[in-house]
């Protein structure tokens, strides 16, 4: 929980404030308890067989995955494996999916997934794709929302701690990816103490193909060596701009909790990406050598492939006037959120005592009038008063993230005081607050970071659960909370457990996705090189010590289900095609002693399990997904003989 570390500097406030109450108010106040409203049970109850109103995609933080929930029920529907291997279905274990997890550092079975982001059209979630960042080894993944599967992962070079990512522009022209850690660019062996000279940040712009969703690293902007933390793109009038928070403008490289908390104001970086496109078109970029992977899963071939790129286009702000400006922002800002109108840019200064709100129109005016405090590496720093729209005074402690309800209100999470604060855009007055349990990070209103929020529910994602659930030893459940925001007062409706750290989420009306959800992969479109289209094509072929089993799975048998003539030292590829074209009919496959995960094969799909038998014997295999009344009969045997045996290769079913 990176955010936890971020808050350590101010955690002393908690006992101090508690002490204040004890000392000065005389006596121990009971903990604030937001009791769920009387009708909460009926508000979150989705009767059996009925559907939830919203999909929620919640990242798993350190789990590396994305989980799919229904709202308002909080029921878990699916884990989408993204950056972590998933033995439950073979993701990251099969030759088909392993290329997805390839990086310039080799195969990585894990990452830290922080921010899911739905693709948008005209600033409104369109339900086509979900992007999510890998923080540790900088990557951006794309999930296809027809299949709810990861179909693409692109690495961002010259980056470390890909935290300000992957936020989309209004029509998903770009997803952005900014580096939290500044590092030497390009990477080289230098003393850490040479941070000030050698370390740089990058803001990456990944272009998204409007038809296929295919990503391509368009360009990077080389920026001073601060920590770039979060981002959101402009919308409506501010379309064409992207905003990034920057803390550690002190450029500390050690003991950041102190050394990066010295300045009263850090920055929001405002990037004119349309201008960047002009500079790229004019050739005003430098091409620098690097190495990064781009992995794409072909939904017809049911297989991913990797491609390595060795160059990236980089824009240098001092060579590109008008490209980027800094907006002074108190203090160590974390979240940056743009309201539905596109005019207000809200910062969550985690050490600040106010929530500063910048005005986009004032920013344009300040740029026009050159109201600059100073210029850093070619980046003008605008005057705070010239860009400020207003400040929300005394909101709470540790303001982090803001979402919007589309009715003129903003909701800001406060980590230290563990509450959601509702305030009015324009007047900046606080109208309501509600505690959460405990210490929330992000909040999510379906569509709450878009131009048209569905302002009905708010999900608070907590970092601590303590006494909220039955204890499970030192490692406790992670949790989110559902809050009703349809009325004047926020009402707590539901606590629900999540898998991994519920870091950030996106929500969308269910009907937008439901109608596009794929039921089966059409068998006739299966272009997997080892697919078979009917049981007649089932066969076993030997190529040296490689044996390829072209296997069919269909209720309720495998074909072939008896295989002889395998030898110790063989590498056996079970290419299993699920011939079913029936909804909700996966088959599973595994074999005794396989030192890999099982595979779950969806109808019409082909997946491969690689098995290297080490001892002679007869090895059973079976279907692992309860497919039918005769599922328990869906099994077979593979006979392994010593190397050089005269047992001929043979196979069959039902003889």
């Amino acid at each position, binding site marked *: 929980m990176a955010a936890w570390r971020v808050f350590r500097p101010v955690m002393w406030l908690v006992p101090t404030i508690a002490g204040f109450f004890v000392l000065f108010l005389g006596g121990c106040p009971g903990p604030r308890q937001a009791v769920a409203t009387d009708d909460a049970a009926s508000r979150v109850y989705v009767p059996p067989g009925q559907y939830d109103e919203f999909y929620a995609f919640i990242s798993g933080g350190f789990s590396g995955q994305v989980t799919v929930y229904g709202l308002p029920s909080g029921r878990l529907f699916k884990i989408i494996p993204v950056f972590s291997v998933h033995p439950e279905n073979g993701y990251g274990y099969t030759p088909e999916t392993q290329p997805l997890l390839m990086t310039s550092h080799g195969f990585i079975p894990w990452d830290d997934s922080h921010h899911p982001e739905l693709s948008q059209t005209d600033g409104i979630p369109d339900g086509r794709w979900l992007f999510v960042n890998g923080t540790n080894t900088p990557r951006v993944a794309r999930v296809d929302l027809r299949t709810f599967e990861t179909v693409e992962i692109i690495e961002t070079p010259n980056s470390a701690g890909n935290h300000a990512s992957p936020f989309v522009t209004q029509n998903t022209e770009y997803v952005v990816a900014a580096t939290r850690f500044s590092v030497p660019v390009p990477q080289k062996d230098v003393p850490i103490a040479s941070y000030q000279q050698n370390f740089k940040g990058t803001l990456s712009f990944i272009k998204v193909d409007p038809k296929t969703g295919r990503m391509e690293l368009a360009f990077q902007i080389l920026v001073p060596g601060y920590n770039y933390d979060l981002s959101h793109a402009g919308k409506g009038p501010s379309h064409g701009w992207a905003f990034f928070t920057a803390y550690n403008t002190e450029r500390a490289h050690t003991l950041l909790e102190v050394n990066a908390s010295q300045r009263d104001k850090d920055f929001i970086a405002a990037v004119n990406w349309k201008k960047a496109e002009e500079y790229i078109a004019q050739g005003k970029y430098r091409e620098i050598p690097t190495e990064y992977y781009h992995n794409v899963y072909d939904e017809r071939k049911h297989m991913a492939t990797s491609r390595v790129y060795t160059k990236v286009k980089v824009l240098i702000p001092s060579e590109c006037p008008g490209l980027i400006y800094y907006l002074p922002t108190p203090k160590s800002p974390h979240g940056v959120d743009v309201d539905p109108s596109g005019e207000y840019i809200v910062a969550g200064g985690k050490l600040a005592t106010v929530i500063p709100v910048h005005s986009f129109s004032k920013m344009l005016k300040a740029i026009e009038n050159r109201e600059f405090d100073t210029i850093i590496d070619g980046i003008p720093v605008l005057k705070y008063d010239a860009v400020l729209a207003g400040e929300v005074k005394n909101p709470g402690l540790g303001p982090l993230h803001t979402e919007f309800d589309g009715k003129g209100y903003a909701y800001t999470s406060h980590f230290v005081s563990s509450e959601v604060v509702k305030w009015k855009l324009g007047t900046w007055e606080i109208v309501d607050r509600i505690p959460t349990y405990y210490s929330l990070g992000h909040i999510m209103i379906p569509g709450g970071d878009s131009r048209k929020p569905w302002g009905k529910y708010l999900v608070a994602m907590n970092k601590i659960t303590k006494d909220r659930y039955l204890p499970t030893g030192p490692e406790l459940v992670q949790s989110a909370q559902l809050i009703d925001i349809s009325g004047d007062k926020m009402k707590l409706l539901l606590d629900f457990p999540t898998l991994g750290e519920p870091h950030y989420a996106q929500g969308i009306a269910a009907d937008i996705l439901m109608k596009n959800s794929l039921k089966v992969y059409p068998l006739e479109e299966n272009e997997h090189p080892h697919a078979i289209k009917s049981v007649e094509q089932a066969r076993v072929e030997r190529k040296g010590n490689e044996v390829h089993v072209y296997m069919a799975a*269909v*209720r309720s048998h495998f074909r072939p289900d008896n295989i002889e003539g395998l030898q110790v030292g063989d590498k056996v590829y079970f290419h299993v095609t699920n011939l*079913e074209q*029936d*909804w909700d009919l996966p088959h599973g496959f595994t074999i005794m002693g396989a030192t890999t995960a099982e595979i779950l094969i969806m109808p019409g799909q082909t997946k491969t399990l690689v098995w290297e038998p080490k001892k002679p014997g007869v090895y059973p295999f079976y279907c692992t997904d309860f497919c039918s*009344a*005769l599922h328990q009969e869906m099994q077979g045997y593979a006979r392994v003989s010593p190397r050089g045996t005269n047992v001929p290769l043979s196979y069959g079913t039902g003889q």
Partner: protein
Amino acid sequence: MRPSARVLALVSVLALGLLYVLPLWRITLKAPQYPEGVVMYIWLHKLSGQVDLISGLNHYIGMRPIRQEDFPEFLIMPWLIAGLMATGLAAVALNKRWALGLWVVLFALVIAIGLADFYRWGYEYGHNLDPRAPIKVPGMSYQPPLIGHKQLLNFTAYSYPDAGGLVAFAAFLLGATVFGTECVRARRQSLPCIERRPQVPSVA
């Protein structure tokens, strides 16, 4: 025949053209696991719908896979309907009650033969089961109903005419009604329903 009767008879004949683009019959299977239903459509010239899925399910009870090429009917039926349309057009052209009457009888025969053939196939598939089938229920056969619905183990089988079938029935009813009303009208004029042979067609 009155011009209006001729037009309606022509409509009845031409409506049969729709049978080439609409499925005749629909068999739907519903089960606890298949609340959305599994559907097979029978056309003049083909099967469509989830035929392979139904065959896959049927293998548990030892039923033969349903394969379009096993039915010679799909080669014959388009021509049969074409013949029916040709004779219908001839009847309208002749403008004789007897000709229309003959055509209505022919149409009825085609429907009766079709339904009988459908019943025969249903019987065949439902009774001739593989003795090595995994699921054997003593005394149980799996013939779908000719029309209506029937519980077959966990499945309820619904057998009903689809759009094409309904068009065919409607066309038949229209043709028969036209013929009937023309007969009644002839009787009112004290004419025989079926024109006598020696009567020379009036040259009008």
